[in-house]
């Protein structure tokens, strides 16, 4: 084994869950999300229409026989390997956009199979030229017969079956992982890859999650989730409201006040969804937002939604309460142990536990405005992957929380690149169930009004909090 792979082994040998987590994030972080392209339709020029796939056979040639599966694996692993060799980085970037879009006719044939008619008939108006590529499909614009502008995500024909079959060849996958990424836990990598891809090919599941978020946030002053048109959605077609807005890159050109507002909304969305909806959309990723002036943000892509039980959430809420409010550090430690983040009885002083895990609560420890910088975000990532720290032998990320740790890795990266300033503690207090703090910002005021109105309209049984 080479010296570098020995280092990797020590860094990543720490726990399968960590590797899986990084994979999950990496898969999303590196993949150029189709949603990035939503905002500016002109960018469709980036798609290689001259090479468009004309048949299911051509799709299979491009993405079948392990190719799609391995592309995903490469994307995921490129996140794990922070110190990825340049040659590998170059190889991945050459492959990044290798799958061309489908021809209009091929896309149309999927609509026929899934929705029972040609798109020109199923929709009042249909744009045969896709506006964006997705990893296993593409997105078209259309107008429904009742006049709604929609985005229609269409899956490549045959791809679900071929991915399923490829994933069954576990022996080959493990050998390829072993060959390409020495020192990683191939078993869990391949397992995670499988789960990730199974989620990705099932549009019906994504539709269900997205609609749950959309309903909850209906009427929200700054948070918008496009509704799914279920009658026009299947496991291979996902039709939702078309929203246009600015991309993350465009937001970066706006003034700091707008950036702060957008950051506040993203922060509110993540924690409100978690604590109130008991759901986490595991995708805080710049490509999954569209921005509008005044802090309004549209949230896209719900392919990786995780629902939490009270049992899952209670230890997390307890941890915050004991660390931030009651300053009862033994109780904080016990909460972490209950959640499974820290092995019970680890021979480490509680002060060390507070020091290490407290890092992840950096934005809410003080009741004061704080600017989240890229340096802060990357320090969190580094701390997360630090296998040499005193707690490394005793800490792990329990399966139920793996997806949620993206808060640390994805959300703060997004907020950091906005250099966002806010009193995050006050905003968090509004949402923490044990505080139910008063509105602390204008957006908070508007949100409180929305919530009061929402609660008054909802049937009692829906109310959980």
């Amino acid at each position: 084994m080479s010296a570098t792979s020995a280092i990797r082994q020590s860094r990543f040998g720490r726990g399968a869950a960590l590797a899986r987590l990084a994979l999950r994030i990496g898969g999303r972080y590196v993949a150029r999300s189709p949603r990035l392209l939503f905002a500016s339709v002109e960018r469709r020029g980036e798609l290689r229409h001259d090479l468009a796939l004309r048949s299911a056979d051509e799709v299979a040639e491009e993405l079948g026989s392990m190719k799609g599966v391995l592309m995903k694996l490469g994307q995921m692993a490129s996140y794990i390997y922070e110190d990825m060799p340049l040659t590998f980085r170059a190889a991945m970037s050459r492959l990044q956009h290798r799958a061309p879009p489908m021809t209009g006719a091929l896309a149309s044939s999927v609509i026929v199979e899934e929705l029972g008619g040609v798109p020109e008939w199923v929709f009042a108006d249909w744009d045969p030229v896709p506006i964006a590529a997705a990893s296993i499909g593409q997105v078209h614009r259309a107008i429904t017969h009742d006049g709604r502008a929609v985005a229609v995500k269409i899956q490549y024909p045959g791809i679900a079956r071929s991915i399923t079959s490829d994933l069954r060849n576990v022996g080959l996958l493990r050998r390829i992982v072993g060959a390409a990424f020495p020192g990683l836990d191939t078993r869990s990598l391949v397992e995670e890859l499988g789960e990730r891809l199974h989620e990705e090919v099932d549009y019906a599941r994504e539709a269900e999650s997205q609609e749950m978020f959309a309903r909850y946030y209906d009427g929200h002053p700054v948070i918008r989730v496009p509704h799914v048109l279920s009658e026009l959605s299947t496991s291979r077609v996902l039709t939702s409201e078309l929203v246009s807005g600015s991309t993350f890159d465009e937001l970066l050109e706006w003034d700091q006040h707008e950036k702060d507002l957008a950051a506040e909304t993203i922060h509110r969305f993540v924690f409100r969804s978690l604590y109130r909806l008991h759901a986490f959309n595991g995708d805080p990723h710049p490509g999954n937002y569209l921005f509008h002036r005044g802090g309004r943000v549209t949230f896209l892509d719900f392919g990786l939604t995780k629902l939490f039980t009270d049992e899952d959430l209670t230890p997390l809420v307890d941890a915050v309460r004991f660390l931030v409010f009651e300053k009862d550090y033994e109780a904080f430690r016990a909460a972490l142990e209950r959640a499974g983040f820290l092995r019970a009885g680890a021979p480490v002083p509680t002060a060390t536990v507070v020091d290490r895990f407290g890092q992840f609560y950096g934005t809410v420890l003080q009741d004061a405005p704080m600017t989240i910088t890229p340096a802060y975000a990357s320090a969190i990532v580094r701390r997360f992957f630090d296998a040499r720290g005193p707690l490394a032998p005793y800490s792990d990320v329990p399966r139920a929380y793996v997806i949620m740790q993206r808060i640390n890795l994805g959300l703060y990266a997004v907020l950091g690149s906005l250099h966002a300033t806010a009193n995050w503690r006050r905003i968090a207090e509004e949402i923490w169930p044990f505080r139910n703090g008063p509105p602390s910002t204008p957006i908070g005021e508007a949100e409180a009004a929305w919530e009061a109105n929402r609660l008054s309209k909802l049937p009692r049984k829906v109310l959980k909090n």
Partner: protein
Amino acid sequence: MEAARLSPLEPLAKAYARAVSEHPKDAGLFGPASLVWRVNRDRCFPLAGMRSLMVQALHPLAMAGVVQHSNWRQDPFGRLAATSGYVLTTTYGDTESALAAAAWVRKVHVHVHGVDPETNLPYSAEDPSLLLWVHAGMVDSIVTVVQRYGRRLDPGDADRYVAEMVRFAEIVGVPADDVPATVASLRAYIDSVDLRQATEAARDATAVVMDPPELDNDLRDLWHDLALVAVGTLPDWAREMYGFAAPAPELMERESVRQLLGALDLAFESLPGVLDARRRIELRTRA
């Protein structure tokens, strides 16, 4: 997948990029509508290549020429790249480049002659019968492997392909009339060659094809699987000459072989220039 570990494939990638010119002067010997264009870029070509070498090696005089006049033992991947570069240039290059490549091969062949130590027979690489053997071994392998593991190639198209490939033999010096132009006559010709045998040199060459020296462990495993599949596609007589057992049927199953080929092909595509070259070919077939 990691590029650094794929360095043995780099000469192949370079050959590919070079063979498919960005500004060809004409459509070349075959043209974008030909079956040669379609078949010679099938993703299962590595498998066809392995089988070709295994079959071609079974002619002692062809094998002797390789052993006595090439550095393939020191640089098997370089040699492989040269051969595939030749196939690609004559397929996708313009007429001038294709004929120049063929002229160069003929020039090299002038110096390739001698006596095979195992049969004590004299040989010359200019001998049309040896050139035909090499041609037939390759074309038969391509047809066999593509039909089994590649994109569709029905019997009519397979015959058309073999007929189109007559030109391929002609440019290195085989009279067109001597070159079989159907799958059946091609196989009849192969079966008619009496000199076929697995000499020490042939066994040695095939051992290197199956286990090339420059691959590290995990990649070697994948390569070895592919080589076993190649063995499984050999005609019975060839397998018996080598003394190979027929591989287990599961190993030969189409879907899993295609997965293996797909993985290898993606790795190949990740090397510089390959994807662009493939796109140039694709665009020209669509034009």
